[in-house]
């Protein structure tokens, strides 16, 4: 399940909702991205996330689908916020659940790596020198690219 929303979310409640009541789940993995007060040497007072309504949801859903094709998942969720948010607030949540831990770990890492390079979101930071659009990082492309060829090593835990 994927969701794009302006409102903050409660990671604990989201994780409970993903895993609740499924006795086949033996391992749950989550990643939570937060607004950081420093980025590239400048203080960040707040950040605004812009997105491409329609395509963003489509890319998130496709990314989730790819994870399901690759790992034996029991449940997953991606929640991504848009709009203005302050340091310490959550931006994104990825949750994966599987019978065993390896699939949950790998799928979680894949989802965040992949969405960072595929889903159309753009960050704009408010700094003491004025607002600035965040540049894409080469490291993010490399993190996503390693999933293109790496065979899944998901096995029983």
């Amino acid at each position, binding site marked *: 399940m994927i969701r794009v929303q302006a409102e903050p979310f409660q990671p604990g409640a989201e994780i409970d909702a993903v895993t609740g009541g499924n006795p086949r789940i033996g391992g749950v993995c989550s990643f939570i*991205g937060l607004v950081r007060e420093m980025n590239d040497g400048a203080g960040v007072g707040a950040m605004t*996330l*812009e*997105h*491409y309504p*329609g*395509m963003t949801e*489509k890319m998130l859903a496709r990314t989730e689908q790819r994870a399901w094709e690759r790992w034996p998942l029991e449940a997953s969720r991606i929640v*991504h916020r848009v709009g203005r948010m302050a340091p310490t607030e959550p*931006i*994104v949540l990825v949750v994966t659940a599987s019978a065993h831990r390896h699939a949950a770990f790998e799928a979680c890492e894949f989802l*965040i790596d992949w*969405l*960072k*390079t*595929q*889903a*159309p*979101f*753009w*960050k*704009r930071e408010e700094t003491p020198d004025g607002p600035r*659009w*965040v*540049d*894409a990082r080469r490291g*993010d492309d490399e993190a996503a690219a390693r999933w293109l060829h790496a065979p899944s090593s998901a096995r029983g835990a």
Partner: protein
Amino acid sequence: MKLLYFAWLRHHVGAGEETRTPPAGVATVAELLDWLAGQSEGHAGALADRERVRVAVNQEYAGPEDTVAPDDEVALFPPVTGG
């Protein structure tokens, strides 16, 4: 053709969305960008560095040789920075 601009490309162009009718010779993404760059100073600024421009046609990523049609929705934006 419906054109959408996001992030700093939107600032250059001065609008997030516009409708334009490219001439008949514009059949690919590359040709569309070449034509658009000549439409205003803002468009030229937005498209000055093509390495920093990503294109989606009807909400699918597209490359320079992919085709565009009059009824398409074409979005132009920088490399994405979500997550």
